[in-house]
Each structure stands twice: as structure tokens, then as C-alpha cells.
């Protein structure tokens, strides 16, 4: 069954309807229902007005298919157009007042750029993950937090409570957020040693997924 769904998904994608396995299952289920209704109409053709039955089906079926497929997607889970491109450069100041950090100078090892804010609830749990992975990958990968739409005082208090293991940069005027196409926080970008974005996490990162994206880049 799984193999059939995979091949169906591939076939539909090449035919112009990009779907994953869940989408292929939806299309299959819809096809079964539509054929069932057609069969029902034919079976009851003496007592039914077939024109209304099939006419209504012809109008409703495409609508149901489109809605069924579309509602499976979260509109905020958007493929970033930046994946595979050079990460937009920025020069931001760390909140502890040390020298400004320029992203294009951070070549030679993979870089993780995490957009967050103190008013973001899911960022709390994610922060612990990032700190743990940052400590583990010390010397092998660089981590930067970019805080936007926030205040230094609040950020300081937050970090005192939650701990810190890497520089936190302040994005004034949300300019870096706009350059990176940030739809909300948290979002995390994985950048390889040549400055090319290899992956974008939308929502809190989980340790396993983060390591999966980071590990192959070490030594690049």
C-alpha cells in the first residue's frame, strides 16, 4: 500500500499536481467516493433524475478534491526560496555590546542562525535544544541568535533565566528578518561553510533534526 501511494504521488507530481503520500491517499480516497457515487446513481437510475445527480457530482467533485488537498497544508509551512542560495548578509550588534557580527565573514564552518523573541512561547523549549547542540558542536559549528521586535532589557532577563551559549544579535527594524523572509518565530537557518543556506526550520527545532542537518556540513 505504501509503495503504491509513493508511486501515485510521484506520478501525480510529474503530471502537474504536486502531492505527497498523504495527498496521494486523499486523491485515492476521493476517487473511490466519486466512483461509488456514480455507481449509486446508476443503480438507482430508475428512481433518480440522473441529470441532477451527475450534474451535481460534476460540480461538487473537483471542489471537494481541491479543498481536501489544500486543507492538508499549513499555509505557514512555506518552502523558503533562499534554500540553495547564498545567505543574505547582515551586520548586527550583539546585545552584550561587543563588536558587530558580519555574517559573510563567518565562513569556514557551518553556521546556525536562529530567529527568536522573548514574547515567543515555543522559543523557550527550542532555546534549550539550541544551547545543548551549540555546546556539543563547539569548534565545529557557529551559532547565532537573532532577536527581533524586542528590547535589550527583556532579552537580558530572559537569557539570565534560560542560559546562553552563543552570541545573541539584535535585529533593529526587522531588516534581517525581512531579508530572510521570516514569517514568524522561531525560524532557524542552516548555512554551510561557503555561506549557502542548506535548510530552513519553521517552528521550534528538535535536536535530532538539527543534528541531521548539521552533521553532514561539518568540515565543509
Amino acid at each position, binding site marked *: 500500500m505504501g509503495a503504491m501511494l509513493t508511486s501515485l504521488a510521484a506520478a501525480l507530481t510529474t503530471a502537474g499536481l504536486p502531492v505527497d503520500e498523504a495527498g496521494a491517499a486523499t486523491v485515492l480516497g476521493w476517487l473511490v467516493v466519486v466512483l461509488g457515487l456514480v455507481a449509486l446513481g446508476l443503480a438507482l437510475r430508475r428512481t433518480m433524475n440522473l441529470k441532477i445527480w451527475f450534474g451535481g457530482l460534476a460540480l461538487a467533485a473537483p471542489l471537494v478534491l481541491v479543498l481536501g488537498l489544500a486543507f492538508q497544508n499549513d499555509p505557514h509551512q512555506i518552502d523558503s*526560496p533562499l534554500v540553495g542560495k547564498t545567505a543574505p548578509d*547582515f551586520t548586527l550588534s550583539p546585545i552584550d555590546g561587543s563588536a558587530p557580527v558580519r555574517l559573510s565573514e563567518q565562513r569556514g564552518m557551518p553556521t546556525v542562525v536562529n530567529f527568536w523573541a522573548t514574547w515567543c512561547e515555543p522559543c523557550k523549549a527550542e532555546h534549550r535544544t539550541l544551547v545543548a547542540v551549540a555546546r556539543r558542536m563547539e569548534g565545529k559549528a557557529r551559532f547565532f541568535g537573532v532577536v527581533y521586535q524586542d528590547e535589550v532589557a527583556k532579552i537580558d532577563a530572559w537569557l539570565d533565566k534560560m542560559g546562553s551559549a552563543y552570541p545573541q544579535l539584535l*535585529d*533593529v527594524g*526587522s531588516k*534581517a528578518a*525581512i531579508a530572510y523572509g521570516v514569517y514568524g518565530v522561531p525560524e532557524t537557518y542552516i548555512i554551510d561553510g561557503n555561506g549557502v543556506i542548506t535548510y530552513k526550520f519553521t517552528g521550534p527545532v528538535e535536536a535530532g533534526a538539527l543534528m541531521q542537518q548539521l552533521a553532514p556540513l561539518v568540515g565543509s
Partner: protein
Amino acid sequence: MRLLLLAVALGGAAFAQAPAEAPAPPVEAPAADAAPARAAIDPSDLIGSPAGPPLTGAALKEQTHAVSKLLRCPVCQGLSVADSRAESALAMKAEVEDLVAQGYDTEQILLYFEASYGEFIRLEPKFEGVNVLVWAAPVLLLVVGAGWVLLSVRAAGRRANPGSGSAAAPTSANPVPTAPKADAPPADAELATYLRRVREENK
């Protein structure tokens, strides 16, 4: 039936009028003590040089508003950057104003944001690929529906006024005539069959 249609129409109109959801989590003003960030994509890398002359004053405000109306506020539900008071939207509007002041035109600015955010940042889908359906389908449905209505009305008209045989009672298109009157079978064959059955049942 008519009441149902009226209810559906009113419901649809009400739904269309409903304002989009209010945006944004609580946001704070950025600290004034930090050094100004320089993020940015030099626009010329992405969209080349400005297509038009730099704008100022009222023209600047107008064009900024016009372009902002075409951009989606990234943290809202269906609001344009022009309408949203979310900080992200205000930041984007500032960037739009910056680009308009330099002389970039609408399509260039849309492409600029599309390079970072993807096509979803446009409020109106581009007229290509599957999106053609979004634009074309309502027009198509209107034309097809109107055509269907016209044909149905004409067919109904033809049924009410048969071309030949005025010997048939004018009531031949209406349901059951009163039993005592029709001893001769009416011209409508279907009705004749029905009438015969009714008479047999009532014997």
C-alpha cells in the same frame, strides 16, 4: 427553495464582508541603544536598477500605499501590509517606501520580497500555472451558468407553447386536469398515460 437560496446568498455576502482577522502577537519597539543593523540585500543584486524616477512627497506616499496593498503581511491572516499594524508589516512598509523612493516600480518591489519570502508574500496570485484557475474559474462559471439558465428558460418556453395542435386544452402543460371534463385524451402523451392510470386507480 427560494428562501434557501436567499439565505445562502445573504450568508455568502456576509462572509465576504467580514474583516480579516486582527494580526500580531504583542510586539515591543526595538531598543534605541543598539547600533543600526545593516541587513540587506542590496536591491540591485536582486532586481537590477530602478525602473522609474525616484519619488518624493505625496507621490511617494501614494505609491508606497499602492504597493503595500499588494503585499501580504507575513504574520497576519490575509491582511495586506498596508492594512496591518503588526511590527513586521510596518517594517516591510518602511522597506517598500525606501525602494519606492529610489524609483523601483511595483513589479520590481514585489519580486524583491518574493526573493526572500516566496510567492506567498504576494496577496494576489500570479497569473500562471494552476493560479490561472483562480482567476478564470469565476468568469467561466458565470458564463456557463448564464448559458444554462438561458437554455432552460427557452426550453421551458417551448414546452408551454407547443408549435402545433391547438386542439389540446391550454392546460396540457399543467398538472392533472379535473376528471369529469376530459373524456377525450389530451394531446400530451405522458399526461394521457398518467390520466389513464389515475382513472383505473379511482374506479
